[in-house]
């Protein structure tokens, strides 16, 4: 009597998956004709993106006054959007670097699109600190460039300067990591390309990848090194972004809990955004066999965990504001949940703290429609989190004489929506021209056991592999 160990559910579903099929499935969009739905989506995204660009040009042409800011609230949607996009940009690197180090093979189906999302999100994020400057044409002054202006040098005490370093480092490492991963896949496309132009393009992009064993060995090593480099960045970026607030004197900003709280929030929102995108991509591009319900469920579990951390952080903040005995601090939080922006606070609480706990139910966390809905909710909640932190803290700070409200203008809203459009443009281009899954890596997790054949009747086998006569 022999007993076979229970076999883990495979990461790639379906009996018919072969190496060729994987390549075919993933490259279908690249090698096939442009679909109508892509064209429609691209048109919409371009229009929305251009609308955003138009708003940005108007902003730069006329002045920051086209936003709804005032003497009391100096940052609102601009920095909210910045932190929101940076947060979203967290999931990609976390998935590809941290999960790589932990040898989580399920990451392979999602790391490429997640990393692409990261990079485009960081593009969007980086836009806001630039355009929020009153004099964007002097933006290069925030770099420590040797200059002839006299003894002018950047202020290394300023968290805004730390941001510059943190974001640019994060962006460059993520970009390199992402691109290195793309090289073998580009080579495959190159090899399969039939017409000369794509062949040339992809051969340029693939850096002459030969696919020999040594190349693969180096590839693996570089991936590991970059993963090692990128992992601390996952934690540093949002920690540093949070210091913009944590190092200030404004009650509600001046909070030591911010770094871990922001990182957890970032992972939370990043995974939600991956969910939003992946649920659409797997459906439209027929990648259900590779991005399975299992993946969705894993990501939902991450959302429960990070959502809970965020929830604990919110409650800790509230507790500390009371426990500190500092009048301004406690008022800042009382004002948060009971003042004129209470609606924003409670939106945040509902979206971020209460709703993720629905994922404790297996039925819900494996339900794709519900997951999609929740991913949107979490993204809304995380936007509100940043809005609540930034605006409700500063709109009522120390001197009641200066207390005010913030009302967004159509330029505020237009630029935010525009960045959604621009992001979509980048993402659609990525889907159309880049291999959406790291298919060469995915092939490594394809199960090639004989289990299927073992249980197959001879008839069926013959049908599957008809013997040529």
């Amino acid at each position: 009597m022999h007993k076979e160990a229970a076999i883990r559910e495979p990461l790639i579903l379906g009996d018919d998956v072969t190496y060729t099929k994987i390549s075919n499935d993933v490259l279908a969009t690249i090698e096939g004709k442009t679909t109508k739905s892509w064209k429609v989506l691209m048109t919409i995204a371009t229009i929305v993106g251009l609308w955003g660009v138009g708003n940005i040009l108007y902003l730069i042409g006329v002045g920051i006054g086209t936003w709804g800011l005032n003497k009391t609230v100096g940052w609102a949607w601009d920095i909210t959007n910045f932190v929101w996009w940076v947060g979203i940009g967290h999931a990609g690197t976390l998935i590809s670097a941290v999960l790589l180090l932990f040898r989580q093979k399920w990451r392979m189906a999602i790391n490429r699109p997640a990393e692409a999302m990261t990079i485009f999100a960081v593009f969007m994020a980086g836009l806001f600190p630039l355009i929020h400057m009153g004099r964007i044409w002097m933006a290069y002054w925030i770099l420590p460039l040797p200059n002839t202006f006299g003894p002018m040098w950047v202020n290394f005490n300023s968290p805004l300067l730390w941001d510059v370093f943190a974001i640019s480092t994060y962006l460059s490492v993520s970009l390199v990591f992402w691109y290195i991963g793309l090289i073998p896949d580009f080579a495959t496309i190159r090899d399969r390309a039939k017409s000369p132009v794509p062949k040339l393009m992809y051969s340029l992009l693939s850096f002459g990848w030969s696919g020999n064993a040594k190349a693969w060995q180096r590839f693996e090593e570089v991936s590991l090194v970059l993963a090692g480099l990128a992992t601390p960045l996952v934690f540093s970026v949002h920690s540093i972004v949070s210091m913009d607030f944590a190092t200030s004197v404004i009650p509600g900003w001046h909070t030591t809990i911010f770094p871990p709280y922001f990182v957890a929030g970032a992972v939370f929102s990043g995974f939600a955004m991956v969910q939003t995108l992946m649920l659409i991509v797997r459906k439209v591009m027929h990648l259900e066999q590779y991005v399975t319900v299992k993946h969705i469920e894993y990501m939902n579990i991450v959302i429960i965990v990070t959502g809970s951390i965020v929830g604990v952080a919110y409650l800790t903040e509230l507790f500390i504001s009371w426990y500190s005995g500092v009048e301004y601090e406690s008022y800042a939080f009382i004002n948060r949940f009971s003042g004129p922006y209470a609606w924003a606070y409670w939106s945040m609480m509902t979206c971020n703290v209460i709703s993720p706990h629905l994922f404790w139910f297996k039925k819900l966390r494996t339900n794709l429609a519900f997951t999609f809905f929740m991913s949107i909710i979490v993204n809304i909640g995380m936007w509100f989190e940043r809005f609540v932190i930034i605006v409700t803290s500063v709109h009522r700070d120390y001197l009641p004489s200066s207390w005010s409200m913030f009302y967004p203008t159509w330029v505020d809203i237009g630029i935010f929506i525009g960045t959604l459009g621009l992001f979509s443009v980048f993402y659609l281009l990525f889907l159309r021209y880049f291999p959406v899954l790291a298919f060469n890596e995915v092939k490594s997790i394809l199960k090639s056991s004989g289990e299927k054949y073992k249980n197959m009747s001879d008839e069926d086998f013959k049908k599957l592999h008809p013997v040529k006569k």
Partner: protein
Amino acid sequence: MANSKKYWKGLEQLNNDPKFLASSRNEFPEELPVDQFLGDKETLENSSTSRRDFLKYLGFGVAAASLAACESPVTKAIPYINKPEEITPGKANYYASTYYDGNDFAPILVKTREGRPIHVIGNKESKLTKGAINSRIAGSVLSLYDNNRLKNPLKNGKATDWKTVDAEITKALAEGKNIKILSSTLLSYSTKLALSKSAGEKVYDIQGNFKGVKIDTNFVEYDEISYSGMLDANKTTFNKRAIPTYNFEKAKTIVSVGADFMGNWLDTPMYLNDYAQTRKPDNDWMSKHFQFEANMSLSGTNADVRIPAKPSEYGVIVANIYKQLGGSVDAPAANANLESKIAAAVKALKDTKGSSIVICGSNNKNIQLIVNGINQLLDNYGKTINIVNHSNTKAGDDAKVNALVEEMSKGEVDVLFIYGVDPARSIGDKFVSALSKVKTSVSFATKENETSKLCTYVCPDNHALESWNEYNPVEGCFTLQQPTISPLFNTRQAQESFLKWSEEYKTVSYYQFIKEVWEDFIFPENGVLSLNFNEHWNKALHDGEICFEKPQAEALESTTAFVNATGISSIKIDGASFAGDFELELTQNASVGAGAGADNPWLQETPDPITKVTWDNYVTMHPSEMKERGYNTQLGEESPANLISITVNGKTIDSIPVVAQPGQAKGTIGIALGYGKVVGNMTEPTGKNAYPLVENKDGVVSYYVGAIIADVAGTYPIAATQTHQTVMGRDSVVRETTLATYKQGDKDAYNPEHKLATHENGKTVKKNIKEFDLWKAHPVENIGHRWGMSIDMNACIGCSTCITSCNSENNVPVVGKDEVRRGREMHWMRIDRYYSTDADIEDKSISGYRKMEDPADNPQVVHQPMMCQHCNHAGCETVCPVAATTHSNEGLNMMAYNRCIGTRYCANNCAYKVRRFNWFNYLAYDKFTEINPAQDDLGRMVLNPDVVVRARGVMEKCSMCVQRIQEGKLNAKKAGTKVQDGAIQTACSASCPTNAITFGDLNDTTSKINSEMNHNRAYRVIEEVGQQPNVYYLTKVRNLENNEA
């Protein structure tokens, strides 16, 4: 030695090589290729260097062209051909002058730069005002550069020339039988004489005698804000139709019934400094101020005890005070609440007989008679109130004005001169229709107004800063007004015009005329000084003011003359409420006044000291009554006001917004007069003209009327600089106490130090907050200068003069109503106004905080000037990524505009929210074309050349007038001395009428600021945050017992 050459260029020279000797005779030892580039075509073509030369020329040409393109050509600066002796570019000249517009009077000092007046402050040498001005006077310099001033004389609304106007008016004067002059109160003998001389002595007969001026009935003085009833009462009481001068400095008890003597009542600038002297809790005594009033006025906010009362009750209050002091009058009973307060006031008055002042804002003769009676019973005449050296600033007679209008409407007036007033606006339709019956009417308006539009001729007067004049504001005091710039337009001073039209003085300039008048009439008064006339004149012109003491005998005679009771016992006071829904008290705003500031963008943008609303007038109503009617009481950017209509005696204002005013007497409402003028290049008038609501009662104008109100559909955006009303129980923002507590001497009771719990050797100890420091101290303590400021909250009355003065000094842009509504006013300094609340400020729960947001029904008010605190550990400095804001080694927080990239991080991290961001290019963006005077060439002339105009996208804030500090330091250096304490004044401290703001060197142990810094009342706002500001505030002390409200 024959060979004197010690050094040689080479062996050739040493050896006197013949070749070398030959070449050394030439200037250039080598042949220059001159012919190659200057030669003919052939040599040029053969030249070996032509290509290089070409490139050189090309390079030079491109460089020169691009260099030339870098610098835009300057076309507007024209250098002096002959530099005037007194003008040194870069150095300011100050001229003593006088401001008088018929309503406000103050001796002033005009700062000019390169011949342009750019700043006005009070003349600190003045005995009358001691340097006090108000925001309207500070802002008046801007109206000089108003591009909408009349630039030519007009005939029937069309531009003409002076020759035509002169000829035609002279003719009209010769033909006219009934010639009348309607003018604001004229303080000037020269003006009166000029007027009389002009019309061939027809206007009135001066008889060459300055003392016994016999004013003919043809001459009508008219105050747009009437004090006619008070003048009439004084005529009855003292046989002198004049306003007394008040010496608030000696007044231990002040009872004001509806008179806002700190804002807009009579000679406000003459009262402010004196009043502030009595508000010092460290002195032997501190005055006690009772204010009965309907609207919340500046005086009300500063009073120790403020009692809301309806205007119809003013008479009752006055009569009851008189009765309780022992006078005999028919006084109706006051209601219970008033009764107890009246009793308290009377008790205080009785205790301070001979050193008190009772005043009333009513224009009712009977009420004023009783007030005179009260002051007589209190023995105040000759002590705190002086009717001998009386004030001349108000002389209007409503009865005469009414008679004139009557006469005009009958068509009996041939020629009417209108000078200094706008009766079509302030009297209204009645005057307009009467004016149409006048054959020839002449206006002297500087700017088109409602009257000038209807006049046959407009002979535009010079601006005050372009004019000569002489004034006699108070008996025995004379001041001079001198021009500080030549007339900008083709205008002529009104007095000059009058002289032109006279027979005798056709060729005399008004300057000569004044000098003659001064020599003939005023100089002889000068018995004390042994100067010749020229010396005297120069001294008077230099000082701007000259005062002679009146003989004491006359003073005594006058006070005894009053002893006969003037029939007060027979006066019947009618205490009945006015008909209508509300009793309306028409008032004036601190920066717009009777209308002087209504077309001045600086003044429109200076917020009302109490409601903090800009760019509008509105109805003030008690919040509880607004809630009953369903009106919005909480204004905000997107929270507009409700509109109502107001009807008084059949005259209606169609729609006017309602603004909540805590402390407004219930059953009353208030509206500010003076509004409804067009500002700058705007198309619509700002605010509503409320003059039509003024009522004529018993021949005098009354500002207390019964009003019917009705809701009007729609809402109206209101621009307020402060939308939160209370201080939320934050005692480290505002500290106040009662005199009783203060006198007990326990500092912890009224100004406790912040303590922080910490662990030491395992024990919890409380240590002073000053001992905790995250940062290294800046090395400015006791090294060099350390500039700082202290603000005495007891002296600050909230008048907002400093705001206007700061705007003028620091080129602060005007941003207009819409931007103010969005919370983007650019003011470097503001005055925070906090109302007290009835809620328990110790209840720091959710509901507790909510209750704290509501001001009390009749709140106590605190005014707190707030500007950059120049923190030693400034939040802004650490967060700027490009180090655009840094700390100077003199303790200033500096702002390098050029370096700023506009992240606004500093503003967010400023705990005091004093940083202002340039949201737009205010100098060019078309949203501001209509309102920002700096957008037109003329308006830009008011800019202070010492202060840079900030670009779009940079942060700005109070610099503590660093340009003045620099100037002061340079002056001290030149003089070879240390910077003397008080030598450097910031714009705000220099303009403060009550000297509430002290600027100085904290390191100078002998300085005033140093002693104030160490004063028991001194604290720093939110000191526990640890930013170590350089601005100190002195705790406000109210003269109250601990259980007294």
